[in-house]
């Protein structure tokens, strides 16, 4: 297995993804990511020069609809009280979260 990713990169990516990994988890992820990336490197055998990327399959078949945009009109949404009822912390109007900026 080649070293495609380093432990520093795993930690950087974890930070980007808002994941906190223990050193043990980082080690496992490093091993698994290297194994998976080794495997997906097979794709480099294929010449894809000039091939447009396919992000959405609806363009492949001429189905009616699929790409149509709905009318941009006013419509009732869920009631605030019902939605906030699910929040871990709320004052009834806003979602409450811990401090964003630490005061020096």
């Amino acid at each position, binding site marked *: 297995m080649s070293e495609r990713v380093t432990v520093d990169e795993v930690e950087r990516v974890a930070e980007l993804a808002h994941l906190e990994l223990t050193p043990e988890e980082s080690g496992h992820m490093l091993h698994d*990511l290297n194994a998976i990336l080794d495997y997906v490197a097979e794709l480099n055998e294929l010449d894809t020069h000039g091939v447009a*990327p396919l992000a*959405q399959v609806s363009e492949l078949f001429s189905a009616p609809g699929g790409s*149509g945009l*709905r009318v941009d009109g006013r419509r009732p949404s*869920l009631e605030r009280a019902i939605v906030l009822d*699910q929040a871990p912390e709320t004052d009834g109007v806003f979602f409450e*979260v811990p*401090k964003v900026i630490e005061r020096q």
Partner: protein
Amino acid sequence: MTAETFVQKPKALADLRAEIASGTTRAADLAASYYERIEALNPRLNVYLSLTKERALAQAERVDALAAKGDPLPPLAGIPVGIKDVLVMRGAPATAGSKILEGYRPPYDATVVEKLEAAGAVLLGKLNCDEFAMGSSNENSAYGPVRNPVDTERVPGGSSGGSAAAVAANLAVATLGSDTGGSIRQPASFCGVVGVLPTYGRVSRYGLIAFASSLDRVGPFAGNVRDAATMLSVIAGSDPKDATSSTAPVPDYSVESDRPAEGLRIGVPAEYFGDGLDPEVRAAVEKGIESLKSAGCSVKPVKLPLTKYAIPVYYLVATAEASANLARFDGVRYGHRSASSGNLNAMYSNSRDEGFGAEVKRRILLGTYALSAGYYDAYYLKAQQVRRLLAEEFLRAFAEVDAIVTPTAPTAAFKLGEKTGDPLAMYLADIYTVTASLAGICGVTVPCGATESGLPVGMQVLASHLNEGTAFRVARAVEAARE
């Protein structure tokens, strides 16, 4: 623990509906009898995560009232149905198999839930699955694995393991699951039931907890092809709440499934019968192909040489989309929030760290990596380019044949714990299913035989976009030959 078997075939949907219409069976009694069976077997199988009894019994009574008046009944009147726990029902738990959604009660119904109830279905409860539908064995559920009703020491497949096992053990007449890379087809094959991958956009995704939005599909499981077809006709159709849903008219798929398969051209791709295919699975699928010849189909080889690239493409595209979709689980608006966080960033990462399991973290990391600066072109873009080539290869094949048949999975159900230590080995369980996911085409898996030890084997019938009717006809011919 010794292996046990809890297989029981549900009665045909049309027969049950006729009993309810004539009053010989009350929908409320039927629902109660299903709840009794669930209570007895769920401790052994871990199929249901939560039950929606009040709602189910109220619906059953509405159906009974209609029947008592002699009013015409909708297509699923009184039929007990289970819902994979990645689809939301108002006020009922929706965990997606994850601790991060423990306690969450969604304030709305998925479109498919509304459609099922409008058609008279009685929704019994929410079915266990791999966390966020990520897995091929149901062992990634935070609420414990589902056991295969055919052999409780084996996995039911995944990620819709509960949906497949519920039908196999008659803990529902039909169920809904979701399929992103094989999550309906592979468990249906492992549990010996029928599973349907509808064309991308055929069924609304509104109210489906998203895994990979360009791949996710909602589809039915049932005990036979005709019932699966009836279910699909109910849940299919356009939905203003899902901009990718197709407005193509919805046929009566049960009528389609009754049409003889005679004269259909069937393609068999050698790429799906190579190394890694279990010989007993091969033999069962080949027998299924013979029965198609007997039914008057013509069978010819087709070439799908890019098949071997499908797993790499799938695991890049799906994880990239998952890393974006799962960013919403951050402890702010719903679900789990870590109790021990002094600032906002720590709250995000502690909540996610405590809430997500190992496989979900692995996929978020892989997806974030594939999308990150410096790697985007090499991984994500490359995967999307190969995705187009794979899709075009299918379209060329479908110019020559009406349907393509393959094994659904390379093996029959494996043992619990057999693959949990090796993520790559687990990913390869999807080797025959991810191709159709990437191309957006439809498919049906139908039981075509069993191994010597009695484990079910499924045949995958693939058809081109919006040609579900053809897939049902072929699947029905395979099923009919075994009756």
